[in-house]
């Protein structure tokens, strides 16, 4: 039997059928679905990293002397950094396995996927989704401590000169705040630097740097806004109102 008929004979004898087209189409669709999932999760991870950076008090790094590294490690969002790297690698793998993925060089694939995750992640962050997502994630994942919780812990440290909470009373030379453990503190503000972005009003959430005087008294050196979602907009509006009142 000639070579040409040998393989035809084998195909007929063993009744070898071509794989159906839908298998290839489905595989292709799955690869792209996987790619989009990876890109979306990668983007969300990047947006949460941005949110973590926004929530980090870099001013504390310069004040913390011997424990700068400790503070840095406590504020770095390791989980999200790992997720970002894993899902960017996943998206590169998925696109490489698409029909024409091999046409791109590795550097182009990395550049494109990193760029896309940064772009979408930044958009999600600007839209305010990162804080919401991170908070929702923290509520559902027991092992995970939210960025806000970690920030509150850092600022619930009167012995080291940091305290934060919600203003409950305002007087000429001191304010009262309720901290995150529901303790009431009297904060002396005579010698404190209070930037224009801080509004000493009831219900305002503020951070205070200073010195603990007694068990419920604190002398402030700096008072700062707590920061967070929509904070900048809120501050801008309040400053506009203040300017209008002054006129």
């Amino acid at each position, binding site marked *: 039997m000639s070579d040409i008929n040998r*393989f035809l004979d084998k195909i007929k004898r063993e009744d*070898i059928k*071509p794989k159906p087209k839908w298998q290839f189409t489905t595989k292709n669709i799955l690869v792209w679905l996987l790619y989009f999932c990876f890109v979306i999760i990668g983007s969300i991870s990047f947006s949460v990293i941005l949110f973590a950076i926004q929530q980090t008090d870099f001013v504390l790094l310069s004040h913390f002397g011997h424990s700068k590294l400790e503070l840095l490690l406590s504020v770095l969002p390791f989980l999200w950094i790992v997720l970002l790297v894993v899902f960017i690698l996943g998206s590169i793998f998925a696109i490489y396995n698409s029909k024409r993925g*091999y046409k791109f060089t590795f550097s182009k694939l990395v550049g494109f996927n990193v760029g896309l995750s940064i772009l979408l992640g930044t958009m999600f962050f600007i839209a305010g989704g990162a804080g919401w997502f991170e908070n929702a994630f923290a509520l559902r994942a027991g092992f995970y401590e939210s960025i806000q919780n970690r920030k509150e812990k850092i600022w619930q440290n009167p012995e080291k000169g940091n305290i934060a909470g919600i203003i409950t009373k305002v007087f000429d030379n001191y304010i009262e705040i309720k901290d995150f453990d529901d303790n009431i503190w009297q904060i002396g503000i005579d010698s404190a630097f209070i930037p224009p972005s801080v509004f000493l009003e009831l219900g305002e959430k503020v951070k205070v740097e200073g010195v603990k005087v007694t068990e419920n008294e604190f002398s402030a050196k700096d008072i700062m806004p707590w920061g967070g979602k929509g904070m900048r907009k809120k501050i801008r509006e309040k400053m506009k109102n203040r300017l209008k009142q002054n006129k």
Partner: protein
Amino acid sequence: MFITKDNCKSLSDKEIISKSIEELDYFKCLYERYGNKLKRYITKISGFNADEADDILQNSFISIWKNINSYDDSLKLSSFIYRIVHNETISHWRKLKSKEKRNKQFGMNMYIEEDKNEDKIKRNFEVKEVLDKLSLKYKEVLVLKFLENMDYEEISNILKIPEGTVATRINRAKKAFVKIARSKNIKF
């Protein structure tokens, strides 16, 4: 259905594919058209003897048949076929390489017998000798580019690497080829 060589000649590659899906006998037109070329290609990149090359070719055609529905007609059919044959050859080559069962000398003889011209035989022998010293990634691009006369796009589609990488690899392969040829006092 009996398909003659003349039937095959009148069909384009794409027609052969679509007719094969309906009637298996048309599939042998692909063998008519590409069989010898592919067998030569297998020998060139692997150094396998004629029997081994035949086996690989048989398996490759069965694999082409199984995957015929994955053929994307924006590609040249030759790229699709060469890709499958290439993968079959490499996987067979790796299997044998790990067992160290390859018989390069036999493959070389079969390859040389194709030309009766004495100078050409000598030249082919020298080319083969140098090619065999090259790593697989260099050998495959040189064979596809200079022995199979394919362009960068086709090579890119067969080896599934970007065209830029094909160009770089050919460039490096040429340098490596010249270096080996010089070390053996072979002039090109």
